[in-house]
């Protein structure tokens, strides 16, 4: 009997996903695997198709071709809400928050949908609206508020909060759903260095302590290189590279896509700010 080492089955995978908007091919036969308890990066210039692929993975957009599997189950035809209940959470490039809810309510709602779904229907006839939340929920919500330093804003409506704060609210809301995979669309955009460091710590904790897998779209190359164990690179809808951060650094196609002849992938983060401007496809 011989022992063979096999990589764990991916918790989320997409195979040959293609998305077209009329004549424009936004995503062209892209395959990505997200193994358990790992952080995978998805990078590329504007218009590369990253957000469109996220929409396909989260169920907001139906692909023209290809399949999406979650824990081995084909979820290509499942709506976004069903995928979320399976454990697939996401944040948005442009935060999709609920303006009339407080920060605390965002987390509460996500937590209840994930753990006490029946309350959506029963609360209205059991007068729960007039009673305080239970202890387990209160503790869980407080934990997330503290982890993302949102405690001072907990009871404020999210309308009027800064972009950075809205990103933190979205991240907290996504984590409150007890996800198995979390899709993060530019989570550090709008955050200052200290806030970015804080969310990085939260991401690491989520992966190490809760076994969450992260798929990260991010323009902060330093963050991606530091966090991700594996990186996929898209350019104009096509995957042009895949590998470890070191492999991506040395990938000529990736360097060309990012900075033309100036390969700056290996340089410091401050220098990696210029990106080729192509129209972003809105899914």
């Amino acid at each position: 009997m011989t022992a063979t080492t096999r990589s764990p089955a991916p918790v989320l995978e997409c195979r040959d996903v293609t998305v077209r908007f009329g004549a424009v091919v936004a995503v062209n036969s892209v395959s990505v695997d997200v193994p358990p308890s790992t952080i995978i990066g998805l990078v590329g210039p504007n218009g590369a198709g990253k957000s469109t692929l996220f929409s396909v993975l989260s169920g907001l957009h139906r692909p023209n071709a290809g399949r999406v599997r979650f824990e081995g189950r084909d979820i290509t035809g499942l709506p976004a809400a069903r995928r979320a209940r399976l454990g697939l959470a996401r944040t948005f490039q442009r935060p999709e928050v609920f303006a009339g809810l407080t920060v605390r309510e965002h987390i509460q709602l996500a937590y209840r949908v994930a753990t006490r779904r029946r309350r959506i229907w029963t609360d209205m006839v059991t007068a729960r609206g007039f009673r305080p939340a239970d202890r387990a929920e209160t503790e869980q919500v407080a934990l997330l508020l503290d982890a993302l330093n949102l405690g001072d804003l907990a009871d404020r409506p999210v309308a009027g909060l800064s972009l950075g704060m809205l990103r933190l609210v979205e991240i907290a809301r996504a984590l409150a759903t007890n996800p198995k995979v979390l899709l993060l669309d530019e989570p550090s955009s709008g955050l200052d260095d200290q806030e970015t460091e804080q969310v990085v710590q939260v991401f690491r904790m989520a992966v190490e302590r809760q076994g969450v897998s992260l798929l990260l779209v991010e323009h902060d190359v330093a963050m991606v290189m530091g966090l991700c164990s594996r990186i996929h690179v898209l350019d104009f809808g096509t995957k042009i590279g895949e590998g470890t951060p070191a492999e991506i650094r040395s990938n000529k196609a990736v360097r060309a896509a990012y900075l033309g002849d100036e390969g700056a992938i290996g340089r410091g983060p401050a220098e990696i700010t210029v990106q080729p401007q192509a129209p972003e496809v809105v899914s």
Partner: protein
Amino acid sequence: MLAYIYAGVALGSIYAISVSGIVVTYVSSGVLNFAFGSLAYFLARFYYYLNTEHGWSQIPAVVVAVFLAGPALGAFLYLALFRHLRLASQLIKIVTCIGVSVALPALALMVFGNATIDSAPGLASEPVRVYRVFGAPLNLNEVIALVSVLVVVVLGTLVLQFTDVGLRVRAMVDSEALTSLSGVSPTRISLCVWMVTTTLAGFAGVLVAPSKGLTPDGMTQLMAAAFAAVVAARLRNLPVAVGVAMAMGIVTDVIQKYLPANSSLTHAILVSIPTFVMAAFLLAYILASGKIHDGSATGGALDQAIRPTGGDSASASAAAAVVKSRTGWSLYMLGPVIIIGIVALLPLVLEGYWLTLLAGGLAFGVVFLSFTVVVGEGGMIWLCQAAFAGCGAVVTAQFATNHGMHPLLAALLGAVIATPIGVVVGLLTIRLGNLYVALVSLTVGMLADNLIFTRQTFYQDGVGVPVSRPGFAVDDRAFAYLTLAVFVIIAIFVVNLRRSTTGQALAAVRYSEPGARTVGLSLLGMKLLVSAISTFIAAVGGSLVALNYQSALPTTYATFGGLVWLAVLVTVGLRSITAALLAGLMFTLTPGIFQTYLPTSWGNVPTLLFGLGAVGLAIDPDGVVAQYARHIQALIGKVASRRGSTEPDPPGGGDGPTTDTSGVAQHALGATR
């Protein structure tokens, strides 16, 4: 046969002119003009005033009433109202249009007189000349309608395709933002479009008046028929809309050849044709592609990028007001309790006529709570709440009077029977988006008016089916308290709903559908829940109104009347429990005050004011109650801060770029207590 075809082509031509106006307005300014019928009525009434009542000949009358007053009215409406709504949510746009549609007929009645007009002349002089074409009669009014639609289509196509103005209009349809960046003023283009389309509305009104009558209801039916073609054209495809409109007109007249004359079945089929057309196209589109879009994402990438998430201008203070009503306990919650307490004293001090009006107002307050739930909490504009209220009323009367059931049990049964109807309407429309919900619900309401409420079983020669009040609430005072008790019970239910997980989920769906879906919420499930609850409440309220009048008279629940109800509630505040109560009282007491203390000619002023109040939503989306509540809160805040209880500015709340995430005021559509 040819005679039917000629008449059908003429009717189809009028529909086609109407859909041209509606589609062009929508694609160029994003406003689906629910006031089209009222614009048509106002201008056609002006034509009648000049032509019939003051003896002007047809040509000068139509020039002044349609071709001068039409553009002027369109320009006024655009500059005063719709210019400010370019980035507003569909909800705001629809409610503003409804405000206009309520105010204009009332204004017309005040300015031109409130004489009942059973038959109105067209553009041809009387007696109308009749030609024989291929052996069949064709009258001059029909010829004018046909020539008019040809002129509109040909001239419109030439202007849009071959002129600089047309190029600018088409550019703005594709992307208003990019057109603006190219140095073209979107305001000027939209202004021109509104002037032209309002003129088309007036022209269609004058043309249709001889066959449909010169009444607001008749013009609303014209608009509802045109909406069927607009839905067939997916709101944007003008050639398809014109083609379907023509076909619908021809079918409507040709089918009469094969149906028995003066039959209720014939009438039922004819009035149902636009509904069948709309339903057939909706089903076809849904089956073909799984869903259809309501066009809320019109414009180019730049337009979508600058469009505020979830609505319009941010209003953190309005959001704070929304939140305060839903979370925790505070002194602010005393406000509604005090107001209900004051209202509870009124039956003790009012007598006779005023007590009857008070009881009626309380019953309407219950109906208005259904709008509070479906529009305020669900974020959907349902325009057939009056039909649901009427359904509750007629069922109550049938069971209570004809089957000897206790009136309250009958009312409950009426609500239970009405609720699945609301769910079915919701099931058919919710996936399609807010515009389609409004369009289809308006058509359903019109269908109920024409098919159900006109039946002799319910209509009873205009007196309705009598229904007795419960034995313990026969007199007005006791009935007022019974109605207030029902209101309070439902209000507590709504407050609990709002504060519970259900309320949070509804708010989530209202503010961000993608966000809600990726949290795991079913949009359809949440909105169906709201549909069911609001239909139930509307039916209970309708039953109480019938019990108050002691008769279930179907005309009380006309769809156009339902638009007035919505206008009244919007004036006071759409998300406020207190506002629903005050709006109900205002709806019955204000006309009573006008009738008692002011000249008869002022009788339409309350309706005009209600319409203007709803129009005010374009300027301040929160309604009167919310405005005053915020002023009082601000005053309390100032007093508190003077006492030194200043709150430190929380991190992230002040500095840095803020994202317009809310449209809270616009979406909340009112205060929340």
